[in-house]
């Protein structure tokens, strides 16, 4: 594959993310990887559900007293919006509009960073309250589930920064189009997982 092939909006393929054999492989492989990730999170969710009321006697942390929905609601909004902005970015990618794509991706990144900032704040707050990782089975399961998601966000942000910086000068080609596309898939996946965390951990924790 030649990286120097110059495209125009017209010659740019309809599906740049699967235009070459390597791209097709990456596309299918990434979907499968997300399938495995789904099982990974499913296991974490199942464990959390089994342990969320398991605290040693004399320990009064519980889901309905600990969590604060307004904060989590803001986080949810940030992440959902970032998913939307990444959709815009992919829209521009398909139209071979590199600058607009980079811009929307940068916005996506900042929204993700905001989300992560709030999560770090949330965790430090809990730890100040004494709800540490080793506090109980509930705390271990909580931090592991939500923290694994947070780690995915952080890895996504590093990945995104590398993509944006590495390709800033040379623009779109059929080699990096797949990379951008799989990133957006990953980002949507993270978003969907968060929707489940919001529902299962926070909403069901406070209301249920």
């Amino acid at each position: 594959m030649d990286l120097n092939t110059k495209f125009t909006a017209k010659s740019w393929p309809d599906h740049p993310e699967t235009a070459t054999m390597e791209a097709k492989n990456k596309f299918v492989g990434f979907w499968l990887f997300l399938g495995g990730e789904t099982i990974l999170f499913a296991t974490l969710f199942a464990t959390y559900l089994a342990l969320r009321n398991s605290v040693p006697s004399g320990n009064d942390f519980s889901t309905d007293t600990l969590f604060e929905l307004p904060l989590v609601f803001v986080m949810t909004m940030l992440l959902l919006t970032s998913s939307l902005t990444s959709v815009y970015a992919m829209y521009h990618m398909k139209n071979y509009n590199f600058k607009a794509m980079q811009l929307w991706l940068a916005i996506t990144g900042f929204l993700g960073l905001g989300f992560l900032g709030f999560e770090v704040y949330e965790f430090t707050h809990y730890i100040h309250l004494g709800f540490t990782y080793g506090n109980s089975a509930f705390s271990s399961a909580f931090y592991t589930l939500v923290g694994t998601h947070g780690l995915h966000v952080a890895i996504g942000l590093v990945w995104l920064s590398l993509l944006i910086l590495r390709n800033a000068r040379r623009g779109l080609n059929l080699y990096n189009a797949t990379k951008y596309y799989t990133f957006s898939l990953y980002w949507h996946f993270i978003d969907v997982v968060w929707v489940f965390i919001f529902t299962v951990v926070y909403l069901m924790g406070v209301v249920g």
Partner: protein
Amino acid sequence: MTTAANTVAQKKGFGATLWDWLTTVDHKKIGILYLIGGGFFFVLGGIEALMIRLQLLVPNNDFVSAGFFNELITMHGTTMIFLAAMPLLFGFMNAIVPLQIGARDVAFPFINSLGFWMFFFGGLFLNLSWFIDAAPDAGWTSYASLSIASTGHGIDFYAIGLQIAGAGTLMAGINFLVTIINMRAPGMTYMRMPLFTWTTFVASALILFAFPPLTVGLFFLTFDRMFGGNFFHVDGGGNTIIWEHIFWIFGHPEVYILVLPSFGIFSEIFSIFSRKRLFGYSAMVFATVLIGFLGFMVWAHHMFTVGLGPTANAIFAVATMAIAVPTGVKIFNWLLTMWGGSIRITTPMLYALGFIPSFVMGGVTGVQQGAAPLDYQLHDSYFIVAHFHYVIVGGVVLAILAATHLYWPKMFGTMLSEKLGKVTFWFFFIGFHMTFFLQHFLGLMGMPRRVWTYNKDQGWDLFNAISSVGALLMAIGVIVLVINIIMTTAKNERVGNDPWEDGRTLEWAIPSPPPFYNFPQTPLVRGLDTFWIEKKEGNKRGYIAAEPISDIHMPNGSFIPFVMTLGLFIAGFGAMFRLEHSWGLPVLIGGLVLTFLAMATRSIKDDLGFYVTKDEIIRTEKEILRSERGSN
């Protein structure tokens, strides 16, 4: 090794050759690496097995201490499953599956190499426990209450080592899936894929869905032991039964991950050496998929005595029995493949013939254990030790040995000695039944599994002694195989494309070993057993080309997989000694940084591969033809 690329390799110095193997992304070479790595761990696990049987040879023996015995059984099980059986099968999958579907390479050569190095470093990490501190001692299942209570770093080695090796397996699984989905030659529809490819496909899907739970379970164990987690600490609200569920949600499919590719290998063998197409191909495919699916529905049959209640036990009992149906279908289809064929008893066929009665034995005792109330007696007794060795040795190890003989010429271009092969078979086969058949009865006579020793007033002495002698026979069989490999390699008599003469699938249509690009022209597939079809129609070349000869795109080698894995390997030590040594934390972070730097390099540095020119292909093909004429 006759190809141009390999001729060049032979002229290189030792350092250059080593570099070539450390950076290779060629699926055939990675296949060989898997065989070397898996073979090494197989011998290691075998030595552990011999020590176990030596300890149990006579009652009240003290050849090894009680604590060391538990380390032996743990490492024997873990090594054989994760570091021997699976990698050896991966070796054959890597070497053969791309050839069977007419591909030049796998979908992700880089990730393929990464998967191998992670397996290898993970295995190394686990086995270094013998020299640093202590080996894991809570059984290969590492049930949480015991693994949490276990002192020393043994279980830490288990959790981190398997984490690294398991991640490698997951990558290998995704790679095979995409390879089979995307890289099939024109005309190779799903229902024309050879059975070995099909079973690799289904086993890879099982890997994709079974390994993430193991990853999570091992993380829980790691966090509990090293980072203050409370998943399994009952005083902290934890629950040890969660580990059992997670382990077996992984562990039961794991059995099928091993046994399905073995079924695939035997399907190829029955068909080749009966000179007849596989009977009931579509039923075989359907049975494979069904076994894979049901494999996820039965994990709790390992937990009948845990106290899940009669309803759960009854459901899982019936679901377990259901698996016997597709498995039975397979057995009868193999028998009917032989029926009406022209059976030639070569070494691979001998293994296949030994497999049928052995595996049927393992299968029927499996159904017996599926009957929950009966399993209350059989569970955790020597009966189950006998059962799973009948399945794993009678199914998987026999398949690996068969495949070693069957595919050796394709991978190395020279035939293993048939005579010595048969000697190996008979020693191994007789030794195997001698070791494990009587163990069924030991279990029924009240002998629990994983016992370090036993008193002599319990009526178990004779059967244990016979069992131990059998293990020795198996060892002799393996030693003869090693001698066979050394002699064959020394003689190095070259063979042609189709050394068994009755090859049916695409891999037998190209040179042994194939050139690094496999097919100078992508083949066109016209049906099941495409090479056989072409042979019967008198096509000397063995396949029809789907394209004219043109430049071929190939991937570059890379050292990054090695570095990435090395980073994790280093980080593992840091995590383990973090609490007792000040260097622990920096080493943990340093290792992870190394891995992330390697990943970032991979992400930033474009890797577009290279082209083999048309002229070079034509030159290489001519050279192969010339050398083949020369050797014949």
